C-alpha cells in the first residue's frame, strides 16, 4: 500500500512541476511530503511561486494565483492517475484574461487524454467546446437544455 502511494506521489509531483511551469510561466512549483520518514501517514504540502516573486507562502498568493496552483495540483493528479472523465464547475471564476487563456490551453492539452465536462458562465470558455449545451430557465422554475454541436472548437 505504501509503495502504491509512494509511486503515485512521485508521478503526481513530477507532473505538478511540469504543469505549474505552464500555468505560471517562469515560476515554479513543487509538492513535498510533510513527513518523508513516515510514508504511511505523511501529508502533502503544495509550494507554488509565480514568476518574479519570492513569496512562497500559499496563503499570501492572490485569489487567481491560488486557483492556478489548485488547478495545477488537480491536473497533475489527472495526468498521473487518469480517470475516464472530469466534471469541473466554474473553476475559472477567479482567473483574469491571461490566466484564463493558460487554463484553456491546459484543457486543450487534456482533451485527448480524458473526457472533460466544463460548467461555466463565461463566454471565452465556450471556445474550447467540442459540444456545447445551453441551459435556460424561463421564469417557470423548470430547466430547459438546448444543445449545439461545435464542429471545430477553437484550438487555443
Amino acid at each position, binding site marked *: 500500500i505504501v509503495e502504491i502511494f509512494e509511486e503515485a506521489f512521485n508521478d503526481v509531483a513530477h507532473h505538478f512541476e511540469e504543469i505549474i511551469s505552464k500555468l505560471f510561466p517562469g515560476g515554479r512549483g513543487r509538492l513535498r511530503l510533510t513527513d518523508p520518514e513516515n510514508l504511511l501517514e505523511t501529508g502533502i504540502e503544495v509550494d507554488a511561486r509565480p514568476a518574479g516573486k519570492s513569496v512562497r507562502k500559499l496563503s499570501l498568493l492572490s485569489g487567481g494565483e491560488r486557483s492556478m496552483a489548485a488547478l495545477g495540483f488537480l491536473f497533475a493528479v489527472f495526468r498521473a492517475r487518469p480517470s475516464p472523465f472530469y466534471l469541473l464547475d466554474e473553476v475559472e471564476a477567479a482567473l483574469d484574461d491571461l490566466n484564463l487563456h493558460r487554463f484553456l490551453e491546459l484543457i486543450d492539452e487534456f482533451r485527448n487524454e480524458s*473526457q472533460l465536462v466544463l460548467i461555466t458562465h463565461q463566454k471565452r470558455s465556450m471556445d474550447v467546446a467540442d459540444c456545447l449545451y445551453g441551459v435556460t430557465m424561463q421564469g417557470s422554475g423548470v430547466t*430547459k437544455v438546448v444543445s449545439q454541436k461545435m464542429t471545430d472548437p477553437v484550438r487555443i
Partner: protein
Amino acid sequence: MFLKSLEIKGFKSFADRTELVFEPGVTVVVGPNGSGKSNIVDAVTWVLGAQGPRALRGSKMEDVIFAGGPQRAALGRAQVMLTIDNSTGILPIDFVEVAISRTLYRSGESEYSINGAPCRLLDIQELLSDSGVGRQFHTIVGQGQLDAVLSARPEDRRAVIEEAA
C-alpha cells in the same frame, strides 16, 4: 470508458425529462445564474452514489425532487440515469454499455438499477470504485470547491492521491 448520456427527470429544476449526450473530448455547459448548470453536476454526483443530502446542497434527501414552480406542481420522484461506454472493459461487468439509474420517491423509498436490473446502492458504488470514478473527490470539482484543494489539511491532499491511485 466515457460518459455517453445523462437523463434527468424530476431531479431538482429538471421537471421535464432532459437528456444530455456526451462526446469524447470537451463538453461545455453554459447558461445564466440559477438556470440549472450545477444541478447537472449534482445529478451526476447523485447517480454515482452520493450519500447524504449535504453533498448536493440540500438538508434532506428529499430536496432533490422537483419542488414545484408557480405553474407547476411538485413531482413525486426524482430519477437520473447515466449511460457509460464500457468498451474498454474498465467496469468489471460484461456489457459494452452500462446504464446506472437511481430513483428517489417522496415517500423516502429509493430504487437503483444497473442495465435495468434492480440492485442496491452498494452495488453501484462497488462497480465504480475500481474504475477511478467511484468516489469523486477529485473527478468532480463542485462550484466554489477548487480552493479546498489548497486550504485542505495535508492529510486530505494525500487522500486525494490515494483514491486516484
